């Protein structure tokens, strides 16, 4: 039941990515290109997502537990650190170089283009290397948050 729910919700998430245009790197880059071919669509994706999830989250948090699991796994409240800001800054640079972010990438992997697969290869190497290094240092960047 949990697996089926996750599969369906992954499809819903991916459908949202495809309809919104977040799976198209050109559209993402144009959102940031205010000085050039600006396309403000990405702001509407954020607005739609936040509108639903802000209300939805309030509603869900009235419950004491999720419907198909023991407990809510929310990231611990921790302070804003230099590591967090540094990591986010590096992410933004990589995002701006291609227009791909992890969420936008996955739904376009199966479209038969090589570009998304190349980005995926780099992503898995970067994620994997950082994860191993963090495990060795016993540093956990509150995984549930991401």
């Amino acid at each position, binding site marked *: 039941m949990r697996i089926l729910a996750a599969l369906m919700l992954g499809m819903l*998430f991916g459908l949202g990515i495809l309809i919104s245009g977040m799976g198209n790197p050109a559209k993402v880059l144009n959102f940031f290109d205010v000085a050039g071919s600006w396309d403000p669509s990405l702001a509407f994706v954020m607005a739609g997502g936040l509108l639903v999830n802000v209300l939805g989250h309030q509603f869900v948090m009235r419950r004491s537990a999720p419907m198909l699991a023991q407990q809510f796994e929310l990231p611990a409240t921790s302070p804003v650190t230099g590591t967090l800001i540094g990591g986010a800054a590096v992410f933004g640079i990589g995002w701006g170089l291609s227009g*791909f972010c992890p969420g936008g990438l996955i739904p376009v992997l199966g479209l038969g283009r090589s570009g*998304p697969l190349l980005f995926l290869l*780099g992503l898995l190497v970067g*994620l994997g290397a*950082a994860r191993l290094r963090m495990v060795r240092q016993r540093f956990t960047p509150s995984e549930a948050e991401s």
Partner: protein
Amino acid sequence: MLTTFTPFQSLCGGALIGLSATLLMLLLGRVAGVTGIVAGLLPPVSHDWTWRAAFLAGMIFSPWLYAAAGGGVIAIGISAGPAMLLASGLIVGVGVSYGAGCTSGHGICGLARFSPRSLAATLTFMATAAATVYFVRHVWGT
């Protein structure tokens, strides 16, 4: 590549992303952050890898659902070359690991919980992405 401003589709698509995030919290109690979901499948593999794999499989199969629902051709414009795509993926992978999340985890889920960390992270990656695009398109690329 020029793209068309699509306020209605983007708002609706965003709402579906938000709905998926809300339902994932309601049903499984988990945050819909793609970075965290993928990371748990890399070694050392998380004990709860099954729902992660299922969620990602659903995302990979979503183009078929999109086609079945009458969606048109999925246009993707990629301007970066092969080496740049690899490098971009690598940089994103390292960044989201230390930044503890990406556009979905911080931008949609964290902000909806009014998390100060997610607000700081989102403002930071939006700013550096905009600066990078400006540099690539208007300084370096001209």
